[in-house]
């Protein structure tokens, strides 16, 4: 009887130890599952936050480029040495366009790349009183031909366009379109 009880006790103790072990293993398993889930979640969050920061940076740069383009002295119109806001001189714009669109004028393109980047389309169009064709001042050219446009930001800003040849009432109304592109590796 006593031997029987001892054997039973040993059996029960062994079972209890097994259960304790199982409990510890389960706690560890749950802990690691939670840890893995948190890491995945944190990673996804970080990735999305980085993507957002990159986009914000691109948009901030685009605004900077737009402001540079609007205040470029090469385009600005003046009246008795006073600079007019949001106004471009059509003859100055035509001269700059000619300079930038010459195929071999890489130096000049690089010089203006400081002002509005090489990945920017800059154009204007007279819409009133007479509608005219769009004039391209600068055209975007990617550094690497293997790249493609992955994102773009466009602003259409109402401006005055000065025609200095007219003796009076020399301003027309136009729209300046500034498109800033972001290039990235081509998806093949």
């Amino acid at each position, binding site marked *: 009887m006593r031997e029987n009880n001892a054997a039973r006790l040993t059996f029960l103790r062994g079972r209890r130890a097994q259960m304790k072990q199982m409990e510890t293993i389960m706690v560890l398993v749950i802990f690691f599952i939670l840890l893995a889930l948190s890491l995945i979640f944190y990673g996804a969050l970080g990735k999305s936050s980085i993507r957002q920061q990159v986009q914000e940076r691109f948009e901030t740069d*685009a605004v900077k480029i737009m402001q540079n383009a609007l205040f470029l002295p090469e385009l600005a119109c003046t009246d008795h040495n006073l600079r007019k806001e949001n*106004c471009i001189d059509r003859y100055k714009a035509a001269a700059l366009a000619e300079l930038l669109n010459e195929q071999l004028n890489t130096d000049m393109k690089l010089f203006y790349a400081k002002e509005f980047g090489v990945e920017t389309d800059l154009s204007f169009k007279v819409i009133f009183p007479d509608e005219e064709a769009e004039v391209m001042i600068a055209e975007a050219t990617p550094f690497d031909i293997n790249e493609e446009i992955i994102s773009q930001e466009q602003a*259409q800003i109402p401006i005055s366009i000065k025609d200095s040849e007219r003796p009076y009432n020399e301003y027309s109304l136009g729209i300046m379109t500034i498109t800033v592109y972001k290039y990235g590796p081509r998806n093949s």
Partner: protein
Amino acid sequence: MAQETAKNYGLFASRKAQTEVFGIAVIVILLVIGMVLGLRAAMQPSKPIVQSFVQSHQSQDLLNALAETRSRCPALTITDEIKDWREGTNLCDSAYLEPSLTSILEQTLASQKKPYRFRIFGGDIEDGVTILSISNDMTAEEGTSVNEVDEDQIGISLLVREKPGFLYIPTGGGSTMTVMLEIFTPVGRR
């Protein structure tokens, strides 16, 4: 006695287990709340910087440019034409004004699918009477017309009014006309 002790021990063990389960439940709930909040913060779309930059002064830029644009009448600017139309001096055919303004607004704003409301007041906005109002009707598809957007309705409207632009035109009688341009953005497109 021994039986009672065992019973008490069993009760104690079961209570301890209950407390542990409750603790785990609290931790899981806190984790889920944290994840949901984090996810919501991450999913929140950032404010479009370029659009904010353009919209913040688009109406004023347009009015500034419009003010000195030459009109279809020889030797007059749009400002002169508005003045002439108001004072009835007939330097220019008054039939030109509204089509000219509509054409400009259509080409600049309606082409970008932007609802607008252009108004000319006889004096100050507060006590002046609207003497000319031009707005586009493309807002029907958005559910609210620009003319339904009043000062006290802006918060609940489907259209958000951007910063308006103003132009003040002095007239011969010592009074001033006020030109106001409001541009709206449908809520979903912000």
